[in-house]
């Protein structure tokens, strides 16, 4: 009885891990398509963040559910935490450098608060 229940849980974990791995792989594919097709830097950053956060976590959940060992799962948690900590830092630096070197296309932006604020600050300085 106990054995049957155990194998049932194992099967469930395997099925969930396959679904998570498929989802994570699909997000990697989506990021590749987005990086190739999108027109400017910010849009490509938007596409690239998908596998770096949600896709990575899905893949790691899938892997953890298949490995089912304590040490490996903690290392995977570490990878996920690194991903969550480093993705915003890298995105901030790339976005800032992109804006300063003129890689941001203004005609594609719906709202551009940074340019507006910079202009306001400049006029305030001049007064």
């Amino acid at each position, binding site marked *: 009885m106990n054995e049957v229940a155990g194998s049932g849980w194992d099967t469930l974990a395997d099925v969930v*891990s*396959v679904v998570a*791995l*498929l989802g*994570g*792989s*699909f997000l*990697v*594919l*989506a*990021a*590749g*398509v987005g*990086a*190739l097709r999108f027109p400017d*830097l910010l849009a*490509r*950053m938007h*596409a*690239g963040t998908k*596998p*770096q956060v949600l*896709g*990575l976590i899905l*893949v*790691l959940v*899938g*892997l953890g559910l*298949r*490995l089912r*060992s304590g*040490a*490996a799962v903690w*290392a*995977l948690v*570490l*990878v996920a935490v*690194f*991903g969550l900590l*480093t993705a915003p*830092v*890298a995105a901030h*630096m*790339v976005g*800032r*450098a*992109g804006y*300063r*070197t*003129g*890689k941001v296309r203004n005609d594609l932006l719906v709202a551009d608060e940074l340019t507006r604020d910079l202009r306001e600050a400049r006029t305030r300085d001049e007064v």
Partner: protein
Amino acid sequence: MIWVVACATMIAVGATFAIVRAERGPSMLDRTIALDITVTAVIAGFALYAAVQRRTDVVPVLVVLSLVGFVGSVTIARFAAVEPEGEGRVRTREEVAAEEAERRAAEEAELRPGPAPEEHHGGPAEGEVR
């Protein structure tokens, strides 16, 4: 095991598209993002391999890869500079050859005997009154 093939195909195609974007550019930052996606695809590939083989010893590789990708993109973004139009493009063989010939011609013109150009030694001293 068809899901393994499906996952591997999606990861491989995504990584290929990202590499194509890294080749096209047009700027260094676009390449950084594309290579970030490539590193993530590699991580996903390793995770898929570990999951299929149920191997625990591959997990440290994931930790290392997740840190390496971050350091690379931050370093490039820190030193991003304004590039002239078309500068970030990968040049073709003919363009490289033309540039090389131009550079060599300039060097030979410099080595040719005759009156040395002003900026080299032998010219009058800067600010000299004659």
